[in-house]
């Protein structure tokens, strides 16, 4: 984007961990993902954002070779997901979005199976992760709560220290404390040079750890941005308290100003981009108070998503 950070490549290796070109998947007539072209460098942490049904899981399942593309292709670590599946999966840690474990094993036995199936993972690595996530391995996985199942899923994804972590909704079911612990695990993975590709519809968590975010909507890639540049172009929520009632029409015509709601002397709106026109317009009145919320990815994202869809959806974004 214009004004984005020049020299994104500085300090990065040229190794491409994950590459998709025109990756497309239709289920009959129904679109999963269409024309996705994405490039993720080794060692990057990339958040994959979008509302439910946008095509995140379809993309991830294409990368893992559960699905075969209708068109286009993907490579992971330079390897073909289908042809090189066995070699590739040794280097991928995968957390499914719909987490179901095979069998009725205790967590320990299940993880020993994964350890053996991946060519022998040192048990100390498993124990370390389990301790970090405060997970009791002696219980059957089937009887566990959703949160504890999710921890088992995370342990199996991280246990063999894979070069690439592909995580579908990784924090789903985790309590806030464990979400933070998970984010710390992602930071550690980044330090260790692992590449992380994680889908989410909760943006706060991605904002904390990701280098870049890829945003999909309705099966198409809407944007790929560095997290910090998303912050710059962010939409902010602004609330201005005037001395006297004001006319909403005066503000709704301003560039970048949307969702104008006036109740008596209080104006609420969102501002996309420069805030200056709004300030100048407000200055014509007696301003008692002004609040501008910290721009966060959630609003940026919603604005991106809904405003592009048209006015009908904008009302839903007003919350």
């Amino acid at each position, binding site marked *: 984007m214009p004004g984005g950070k020049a020299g994104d490549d500085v300090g990065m290796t040229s190794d491409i961990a994950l590459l998709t070109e025109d990756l497309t998947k239709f289920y009959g007539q129904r679109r999963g993902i269409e024309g996705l072209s994405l490039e993720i460098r080794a060692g990057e942490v990339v958040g994959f954002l979008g509302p439910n049904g946008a095509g995140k899981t379809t993309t991830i399942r294409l990368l893992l070779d559960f*699905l075969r593309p209708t068109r286009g292709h993907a490579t992971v670590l330079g390897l073909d997901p289908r042809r090189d599946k066995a*070699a590739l*999966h040794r280097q991928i840690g995968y957390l499914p979005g719909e987490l179901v474990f095979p069998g009725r094993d205790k967590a320990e036995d299940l993880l020993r199976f994964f350890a053996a199936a991946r060519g022998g993972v040192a048990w100390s690595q498993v124990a370390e992760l389990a301790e970090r996530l405060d997970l009791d391995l002696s219980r059957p996985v089937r009887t566990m709560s959703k949160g504890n199942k999710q921890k088992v899923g995370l342990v*199996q994804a991280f246990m063999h220290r894979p070069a690439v972590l592909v995580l579908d909704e990784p924090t789903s079911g985790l309590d806030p404390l464990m979400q933070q612990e998970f984010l710390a695990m992602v930071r550690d993975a980044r330090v260790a040079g692992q590449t992380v590709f994680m889908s989410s519809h909760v943006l706060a968590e991605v904002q904390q750890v990701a280098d870049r975010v890829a945003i999909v909507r309705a099966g198409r890639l809407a944007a790929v941005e560095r997290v910090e540049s998303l912050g710059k172009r962010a939409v902010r929520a602004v609330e201005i308290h005037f001395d006297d009632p004001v006319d909403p029409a005066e503000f709704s015509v301003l560039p970048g100003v949307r969702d104008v709601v006036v109740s008596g002397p209080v104006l609420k709106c969102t501002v996309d981009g420069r805030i200056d026109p709004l300030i100048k317009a407000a200055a014509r009145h007696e301003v008692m108070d002004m609040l501008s919320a910290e721009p966060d990815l959630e609003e940026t994202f919603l604005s991106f998503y809904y405003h592009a869809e048209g006015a009908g959806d904008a009302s839903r974004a007003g919350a």
Partner: protein
Amino acid sequence: MLPALVRKTWRDDRLALIGWTGGVAAFTAIYTSFYSQFQGAAELKQDALPQGMLDFLGIADMLSPAGYLQATIFSLVGPLLVLMCAITLAARTIARPEEDGGMELMLANPVSRAAFAWQRVVAAGSALTGIAAIPWILLMIIVPWIGMDIALSNVAAASAGLVALVWCFAGIAFLVGAATGKRAAVLAITGGLAVATYMANAIGGMVDGWHWVRWLSPFHYFIGTDPLHTGWHPAELLALVLLGAAATIAGVIVFDRRDIGV
């Protein structure tokens, strides 16, 4: 050492395997052991059923040892039992875990699709073979023990046929599961096929002009050769094994080519 997935498959199926082993063993042992006590009542039973019904059930006579074994173990309930076992275990290789979602994490391990399918086949197939061979093993012990007057080689031939029949239908069940990923499809299609081909064999043996349909039925290759009287028929057994093998190979190929868990 065996692949982790093979061991895991056995472990996950262990309750079912123990249940089927116990069931098939009890069925074989109890029926065969009743041979001596049964002899008095056999004539009554044989007279009680019309000849057409006896033919349909594949019961030639219940008085000779061969006729008794045919009527009890090999004609209806025995094959029914081991085929139910074969079909449900084959449904567990791919269809069931695909439907409940548990297959995804197994497939995320470093194995190719085909290797995954083969390891599931080997695990389920070996367990199934063991269960289908239980009548064989027990009959080799019980028949001499209770002094049934029949050549053990003929009993072995019929028992081997039961194993071959299981391989045939297990292969078909695996193919359906590998192609559709639906447990209900495995049970309905393979079960329906078993019933239809059983009927084809029975009716083909009774109705003039319809003898040819027997050649379409796996049951004909299993028991239509009357192994309890005539001994080994390797070509027929081989036909069953080859059909099962062909279905299994087709299943692996189809599974390797399709989307998973859609």
